[in-house]
């Protein structure tokens, strides 16, 4: 049996001949050690000065989700990690590092949100965007799964009824697609429109997965139908409003414009607010 050496680093002496304080101090000095390599990065992630990312399964296949201590910072479908990391750095000035999986709570919240359960709060890190962009994205978050709204609806709802094009641009810059459901915003004429996450086909796929059939929507658009009313309630809605979907065919009334609905004595639905909160949805 051996004894505790008073000076392990020096490699000399033993407890019996070197129990001097100096030897103990020398041994204690060897007890400092480097932090695990990931600790520094993990700290920067925690305060929002760097990000981690991992893949999640979605109806559009595997997508990257990036996050930091302030919230989710990106949902991404780039071809590879390098492309994503470069684009992420160009946009945010922060380094993103790939890890195995999302933090369990965040992972569950996102999974539930994508399945339509909106009770889980998902913090979003929207630093670096303009107030207008944030207003557009937060408004898009109000659109329920399975429903769509025109760009003009967002513009009217955020009090900028004439900024329809700017709304489209802001949605195109949405850094957190799917979670911020910009895919639920369609052209004011009812066509599906563009999608930042891989183009219109992906937009159709995700809308179909959510129960808003893009073929039906475009069929209505082609037929010039913008609103659906009920002749029992005399309320008119956007076609995908859950109230509109409860109207039985026998009582369904179709309108090409809000003016036509008003002239027929109908009032706008309070849920889907078909002409926007401000009631000022220009041409439509």
């Amino acid at each position, binding site marked *: 049996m*051996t*004894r*505790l050496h008073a000076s*392990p680093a020096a*490699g000399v002496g033993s407890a019996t001949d070197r129990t001097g304080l100096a030897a103990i101090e020398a041994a204690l000095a060897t007890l400092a050690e480097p*932090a695990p390599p990931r600790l520094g990065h993990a700290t920067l992630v925690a305060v929002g000065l*760097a990000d981690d990312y991992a893949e999640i399964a979605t109806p559009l296949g595997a997508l990257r989700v990036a996050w930091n201590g302030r919230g989710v910072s990106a949902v991404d479908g780039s071809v590879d990690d390098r492309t994503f990391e470069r684009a992420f750095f160009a946009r945010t000035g922060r380094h993103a590092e790939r890890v195995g999986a999302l933090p369990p709570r965040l992972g569950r919240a996102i999974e539930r949100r994508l399945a339509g359960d909106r009770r889980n709060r998902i913090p979003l890190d929207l630093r670096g965007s303009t107030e207008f962009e944030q207003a557009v994205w937060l408004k898009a978050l109000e659109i329920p799964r399975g429903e769509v709204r025109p760009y003009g609806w967002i513009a009217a709802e955020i009090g900028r009824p004439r900024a329809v094009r700017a709304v489209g641009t802001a949605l195109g810059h949405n850094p957190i697609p799917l979670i911020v459901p910009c895919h639920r915003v369609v052209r004011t004429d009812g066509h599906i429109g563009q999608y930042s996450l891989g183009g219109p086909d992906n937009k159709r796929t995700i809308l179909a997965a959510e129960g808003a059939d893009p073929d039906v929507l475009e069929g209505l658009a082609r037929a010039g139908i913008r609103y659906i009313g009920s002749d029992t309630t005399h309320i008119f809605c956007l076609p995908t409003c859950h109230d509109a979907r409860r109207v039985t065919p026998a009582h369904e009334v179709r309108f090409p414009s809000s003016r036509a609905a008003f002239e027929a004595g109908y009032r706008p639905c309070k849920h889907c607010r078909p002409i926007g909160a401000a009631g000022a949805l220009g041409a439509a």
Partner: protein
Amino acid sequence: MFHWVMDANAELDAALSARLAVDLDASFEALVQAHVDRLFSIALRILGDRGDAEEAAQDALVRAYGALEGYEPARVRELRLRPWLTTIVVNVCRNRMRVKRVRTTELGFDPGAEPLVDPVARRDAREAWAALLMTLPASQRIAIVLRHVDGLSYQEMSAALDKPEGTLKAQVHRGLAALRHALADEGHDHREMTA
């Protein structure tokens, strides 16, 4: 007062404080790089567990960031980072010890291995020393870790722990004496066991 000798660390920290005062987000990574190892070492040797130490070191740095966010630039510029961060990590460790009783290890180790050039033996000896530290009362352990593992001056320790230097010197002294006793006992035990 004219300082003939300015500690290189203190000089680096002063430069860092100045940068933090100007742009926290651009400079915080430098603070992490400069201090993460020592904060981890302090937490590791106070708490005695690597997982706990990682969490404590990260927690301390996150708290530091939060505090720096709220401070006026003038205050940040005047901060002495080494003692200031030490205060934070020691508080985090104390809180963790309060919540989770830190195991005070029994001295059942075999520090082993005759030739200490053997890296495995050296690691075992360090573990033995770390275990021995865990047998000390928390206040002595904290004082010893700051003085002899981290290498703070008594002046810095006094600033970090808000205690007079004399008190801290006494704690370190008592702690070292306790370690020496434990060591002597250990040697004695082994003699008995091998007799």
